[in-house]
């Protein structure tokens, strides 16, 4: 049941990515191209997503545990350090070069396009590189 729920959750997220335009690198890159063919659509994606998560998270946290058991695993790190800023700076550079980010590329893989597969293989190589260069474990997501 937990896995069916996870699959369904992924499907909703993926449909959102597809409908919103996040899956289209041309659109993503145009969001950043303020001096050229600017397309501000993606600000609306973030607006819609934040509206739901801001209130939805707070409703979810009224429960004491997650529906399928276990505690809510919310990142506890608060330090704004060199890794956070440097890593994020790098991420933005890569995003600006390729036009894909991981959350858009995973659903986009379902289109069967080879460019998406190539990007994701490169991302995995980047994960390996991080492990080789910075052995100390990194704080988990966000």
């Amino acid at each position, binding site marked *: 049941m937990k*896995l069916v729920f996870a699959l369904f959750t992924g499907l909703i997220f993926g*449909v959102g990515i597809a409908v919103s335009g996040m899956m289209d690198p041309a659109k993503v890159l145009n969001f950043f191209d303020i001096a050229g063919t600017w397309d501000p659509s993606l600000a609306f994606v973030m607006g819609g997503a934040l*509206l739901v998560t801001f209130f939805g998270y707070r409703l979810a946290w009224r429960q004491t545990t997650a529906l399928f058991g276990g505690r809510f695993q919310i990142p506890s790190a608060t330090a704004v350090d060199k890794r956070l800023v440097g890593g994020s700076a790098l991420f933005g550079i890569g995003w600006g070069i390729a036009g894909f980010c991981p959350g858009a590329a995973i659903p986009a893989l*379902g289109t069967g396009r080879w460019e998406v597969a190539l990007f994701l293989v490169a991302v995995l*190589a980047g994960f390996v590189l991080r492990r080789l260069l910075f052995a100390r474990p*990194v704080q*988990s997501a966000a």
Partner: protein
Amino acid sequence: METAFTPIASFGGGLAIGLGSVLLMLGLGRIMGATGILSGLAFPENREEFAWRTALVLGMMLAPGLIYAATGAMPELTVPASPTMIVIGGVIVGLGASLGSGCTSGHGVCGLSRLSVRSFVAVLTFMVTAAITVFLIRHVFGV
């Protein structure tokens, strides 16, 4: 290349992205961060951690097919980057998102809605560097 301004579809898609993120928190108690999810698939801690991530990723990958079934067309996907740029960009994305503990989904959607200071710093940083990168590529080097 021009792309059409789609505020309604983008906002609607954003609502679904938010809903998926909230459901993952409500059901499994987890942050919908694509970097953490992919990383957990590549380097799994145990079978259970691997299993839910696999199901989640499969669900995501079914989305374009569902859209195709419903509308008769795959979602729009145009790749301006060359294969070399995709590889270089991908490696930098993987390295950076892993080092910075998140990407657009984890820091952007989930972190900002938690009002995490780390995520505000991360999002501001990667939005600025992405915009500078696109400016340099398109208007300085003219690729």
